[in-house]
């Protein structure tokens, strides 16, 4: 097993990185969360360059690349605090491709792959309503919950803005007004791929928080020295690096497993989700501490990263639920339940 990216994978990572760096910023993320239209332009760029179909099979107009490539894009998106459109569309495409039937694939995948008919991901609540991320303008939603996944065309539901902890994505409550179409195939494996992609995004969030902390530790002077020269700060930064690298390794291992050894995916995906969710929480909170007073201000980006880490950390199964699944996979008791989106 080789955990070094090949030339193509590095080119994919660098390609999406240059697009995100020039087309998106934390300021755009704030405006998007506040209701402005910035994300539409980013989505147009992504569509024009063919990114939405990266992991969709070529038969449906995608590029047919693997989960490793998808996670490279998701990590970069997380680092850029990009809105949920790319992730939601990629997630929904993976769910329909993995757990949908032929009719559902034929109907929806070409639109998800080209980005012309975007998909959005949401959770299915016990009362039959849903909560979806960046779903405005989507052609279809997949709502996941209670071990089921329901495909809903945009015309068969109503979206209302809802308040969420994350200020860089828009949350909508979903009321079903028409029919739904259940994805009845192997939902478990498809969901695990999505969990890996989400974990990659969390690694990107943590990496950005670490980058900001390091900039601060190098540039902020106290008592005539950069604060990073003091062990209380440098040890904290070293721990952050440990968290980021551990989570990234777990995510890459899970992505590789998804493509090459899917029978081991339930364990690998949960390890990735736990490492990324807990790591991102620790790193974003530690970054805030390294920043001192400025990190607590509304204007600073620290809280955007922290909120994203909390929100995504609890999406598609909390760390605790995934720890149960890890334990169960190693025969330590507990039932390996498919996590529900929350």
């Amino acid at each position: 097993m080789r955990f070094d990216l090949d030339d193509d994978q590095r080119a994919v990572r660098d390609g999406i990185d240059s697009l995100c760096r020039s087309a998106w910023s934390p300021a755009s993320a704030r405006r998007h969360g506040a209701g402005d239209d910035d994300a539409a332009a980013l989505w147009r760029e992504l569509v024009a360059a063919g990114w939405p179909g990266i992991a969709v099979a070529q038969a449906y107009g995608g590029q047919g690349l693997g989960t490793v490539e998808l996670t490279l894009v998701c990590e970069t998106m997380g680092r850029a605090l990009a809105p949920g459109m790319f992730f939601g569309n990629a997630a929904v495409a993976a769910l329909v491709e993995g757990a949908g039937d032929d009719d559902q694939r034929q109907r929806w995948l070409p639109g998800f792959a080209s980005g012309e008919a975007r998909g959005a991901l949401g959770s299915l609540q016990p009362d039959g309503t849903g909560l979806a991320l960046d779903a405005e303008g989507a052609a279809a939603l997949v709502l996941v919950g209670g071990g089921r996944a329901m495909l809903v065309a945009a015309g068969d539901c109503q979206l209302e803005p809802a308040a969420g902890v994350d200020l860089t994505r828009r949350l909508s409550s979903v009321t079903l007004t028409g029919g739904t179409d259940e994805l009845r195939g192997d939902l478990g494996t498809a969901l695990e791929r999505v969990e890996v992609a989400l974990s990659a995004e969390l690694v990107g969030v943590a990496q950005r928080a670490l980058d900001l902390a390091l900039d601060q530790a190098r540039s902020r002077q106290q008592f005539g020295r950069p604060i990073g020269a003091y062990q209380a700060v440098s040890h904290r930064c070293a721990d952050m690096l440990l968290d980021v690298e551990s989570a990234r390794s777990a995510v890459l291992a899970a992505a590789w497993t998804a493509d090459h050894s899917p029978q081991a995916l339930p364990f690998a995906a949960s390890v990735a989700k736990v490492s990324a969710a807990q790591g991102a929480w620790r790193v974003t909170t530690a970054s805030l501490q390294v920043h001192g007073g400025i990190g607590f201000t509304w204007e600073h980006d620290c809280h955007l990263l922290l909120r994203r880490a909390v929100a995504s950390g609890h999406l598609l199964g909390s760390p605790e639920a995934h720890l149960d699944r890890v334990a169960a996979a190693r025969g330590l008791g507990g039932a390996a339940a498919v996590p529900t989106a929350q």
Partner: protein
Amino acid sequence: MNVVVCIKQVPDPNSPGQLDPSTHLLKRDGELVLDPGDEFGVEAGLQLVEKHGGQVTVVSMGPERGLDAVRKALAMGAAKGVLISDDSLRGSDALTTAKVLAAAIRKQDFDVVITATESTDGYTGVVPQMIAGLLDIPAVTFAKSVSVEGDKLTAQRQTETGIEVVEATLPVVLSVTAGVNEPRYPSLKGIMGAKQKPLDRPGPADLNLEDVGGASTGQRITAIDSAPERAAGEIIKDEGEAAKRIVDFLADKKVI
């Protein structure tokens, strides 16, 4: 119409470049990127061939890692890459660089050679003109916009006093300024297809460069020093006159 675009891989301009004190050469161990200035050149070349047919070939001289920059240009849409990479060329001065690039360009079928105005690491700003001299064709420099009709190239040229309109008969060397266009992002398909595109790796012998005489025959770097700190700017306190003084200042600098 065939276009050759000269490109260079440079240390990421977002992190300050450093010189190796023993060799006086730029350190290249950090993050390297396609020179942002060259992205405008590649885009200008792509726009010309999209309008007039033909293809874009990118030519670069540099270390092995420079392949990444060539691949990025191929991902943007160039059809072919040429990378001249040889230890004997390490630390080449501007004239040697121009000789190597000109030798590689001579082997291509070209109507226009596009470059940036200068590299974002060496900043000599003389290579485009040297290439034109070596190829014995006109140099149209600092182009802000460019168009081609038949065998005539017309460019608007940015100068200190205004914009000149320059015409030249093909073939020409054209250096373009940043902002001449908006470089496209490589598409995912372009990125995945870049590796399949033809890539030439000629050595100095293939280009008959034996008489170039080493990397830096014409210059020797004797010392390096930090640039002087920039003087503090003038702060204008607004007591009713500030707008006028700023306008006067800008007018004096010929900005407005």
